[in-house]
């Protein structure tokens, strides 16, 4: 029995959840998706994801707060960035993307919790702007040995990569530019071309479901995004079935699932209120449909989420909870 006692403010009990627990749980939930990417795209997948993580975590370690690497958020950013890159990407680009994600996506805003935009998506947007060809060169899978690299992963920085890999278009590219529809079953189980982690819609849903059950993911955001996309597409499809794809194709193709489940739900860059989450998701879903259908790009999830990220402070302010025992909320100043 000591004669000195701790005096702290209440509550004297704390729940077991901690920010690192949440972050590392997200990392853990991504393992099946990572494993599938490796199974499907071979060693290139490992290399690209590793490079993105090295870029992200290295930047956090070098310029972030001391010990901030341990909270796991930089690792998530690196992995998520890796998952939305093509397997054949030169590794130096992946490292650069990871570094940009953390440096310009997070650290310049003040580190964890301060950033406005999803760091992984910001990194990808940077890569897409800087290296549009490399970012849209999708390796083919059929007829290639698992052990072979899916592109010039070891290209030297700033040298043009040799494009001799066998490439395959993504389902969205096929739809948009060649009017070929990929079977829905291939989309659902991930046997299509695309970025590392955007194939395999069902797997992503399962992994996200696990996080939602642990309350580490706000299910309202993906629900809202997917419902909005489904409804908008269904309406368009009913109007002109020859021009617009079916809702199931839209839901399962491209980066929508990964974006809706893992990118849009980033806690820091999504609304804190439930109503805000629904509005945010609806905005993302609507923008995805607009960009995919009428934009110049095949895919629109990235820009849709980044645009809605910018609106989050306003959504939060507009959806303040109604305080107990009041009829309306006071307008925040």
């Amino acid at each position: 029995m000591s004669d000195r006692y701790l005096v702290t403010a209440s509550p004297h009990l704390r729940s077991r959840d901690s920010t690192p627990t949440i972050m590392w749980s997200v990392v853990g939930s991504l393992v099946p998706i990572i494993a599938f990417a490796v199974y499907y795209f071979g060693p290139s997948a490992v290399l690209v994801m590793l490079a993105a993580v090295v870029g992200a975590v290295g930047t956090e370690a070098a310029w972030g707060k001391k010990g901030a690497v341990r909270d796991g958020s930089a690792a998530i950013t690196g992995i998520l960035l890796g998952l939305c890159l093509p397997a054949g990407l030169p590794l130096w680009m992946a490292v650069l993307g990871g570094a940009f994600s953390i440096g310009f996506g997070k650290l310049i805003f003040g580190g964890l919790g301060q950033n406005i935009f999803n760091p992984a998506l910001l990194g990808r947007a940077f890569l897409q702007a800087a290296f549009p060809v490399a970012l849209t060169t999708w390796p083919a899978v059929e007829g290639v040995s698992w052990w072979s690299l899916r592109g010039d992963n070891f290209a030297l920085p700033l040298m043009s990569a040799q494009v001799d890999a066998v490439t395959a278009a993504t389902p969205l590219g096929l739809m948009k530019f060649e009017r070929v529809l990929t079977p829905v079953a291939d989309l659902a189980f991930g046997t299509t071309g695309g970025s590392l982690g955007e194939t395999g819609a069902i797997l992503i849903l399962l992994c996200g479901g696990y996080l939602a059950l642990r309350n580490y993911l706000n299910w309202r955001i993906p629900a809202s995004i997917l419902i909005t996309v489904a409804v908008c597409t269904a309406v368009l499809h009913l109007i002109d079935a020859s021009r617009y794809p079916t809702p199931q194709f839209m839901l399962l193709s491209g980066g929508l699932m990964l974006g809706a489940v893992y990118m849009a739900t980033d806690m820091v860059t999504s609304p804190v209120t439930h109503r805000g989450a629904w509005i945010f998701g609806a905005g993302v879903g609507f923008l995805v449909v607009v960009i995919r259908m009428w934009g110049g790009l095949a895919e629109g999830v990235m820009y849709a989420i980044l645009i809605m990220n910018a609106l989050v402070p306003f959504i939060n302010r507009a959806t303040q909870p109604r305080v107990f025992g009041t009829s309306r909320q006071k307008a925040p100043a």
Partner: protein
Amino acid sequence: MFDRLTFRHGVHPPELKQLTADLPIRRLPYPREVVLPLSQHTGKPARLIVRVGDRVERGDLIGEPDGWVSSPIHASASGTISEIGLSPHPDGTFKPAVRITVEPFSAQIPRPRLVPDWHGLDRDGLLEAVRHAGVVGLGGAAFPTHVKLKPPPDKPIEMILINGCECEPYLTTDHRTMVEFPERIHLGVRIMMKILGVSKVVIGVERNKPDAIEALERTKPADLDVVVLPLTVKYPQGAEKMLIEAVTGREVPSGKLPLDVGIVVQNAASVATIAEVFDTGLPLVERIVTVTGLGVRKPANLIVPVGTKLGDLLTACGGMTDDAREIVFGGPMMGAAQANLDTPLTKGTTGVIVLAERECKEQASYPCIRCGHCLDACPVFLNPQQLGKLAATGRYEEMADAYHLSDCMLCGCCSYVCPSNIPLSQQFAAARVALRQRKSVA
């Protein structure tokens, strides 16, 4: 829906009640001295009417109420007043208190009937008797009971709500009271009904106390309209506004009191005390406390004289373990940590919890990641995330004006769930103090 009565939001901390839930209430030998602060209740401190050297019997008045929202203080043991001065107070400050050296061989038999028999009293007589017996709410806030029992004439009361939730982890004070003295609760209810002229009574008890529910049902008088209502186990189910929401589905308007919706809420131990003072004729001089936690050797439910010093109480419970680290008066969610073993227990001390080292390790704090868990936990639907951000930069006026700081009950749910361990409710308490100071300066 009937079997799922509760409020929205809230948290589920571990209950931790098994240490003392089945231990019968025991009485301890009298300590060598008791220390009675003149302020043990909400409102003005009592006015001192004794001097050093005076001899007092148990139950004698030593401080009289100073105005309506105040309460008298009585000697909790027979002995001699040895000192009148500042003493450590459970709220962390030093406050005027009366120290009584307890007569070692006294039988502690009080003067006969200091509180009159209730049968012969009318409403006003009962109210005065409650007031002069020093009865206050025993659930923690120690609000003078007679004030609650005399609502303004323009606020008609329809229902009495007895709070038997005891939603704080560890505590079993109300639980054991309901199990062992259910008749007292019903008698207290009867007296409250007579004072308030109300015929409808609901006793809300959390489902984790089936023995209490059973005892209350078994002893229910046939002539009273009393409903014992099992409620969902959730914190803070025992907060007045949450209890009213669970039982009636109504929200007490922001800034208003339960009596504004026609309800008087009284904690179970307090109701039992109303009955007790009329039963024994002795004013409120002792109370039931739970002494528990992994840091105390022999957890117990005890009847102790008000003013018993913390150190004496812990010694009587076998002392503290080697890894005892923090001592808390009240529940672990809202209770106040104590720094001094000479601090006396007051009327509002529901329990003493000694937390062990492993329960109160300092946890690393991280920046807010806007997970929104605090918004999902807040039982009064505030935005602790935004409030915390404003508090961190000292924007207290904005917290009060735009984000309803005054509606915060300091229940601690937001701090409890925060994965980044941001001390939200502590910041809100500090903000309120700072605002009060700014206002008083202006």
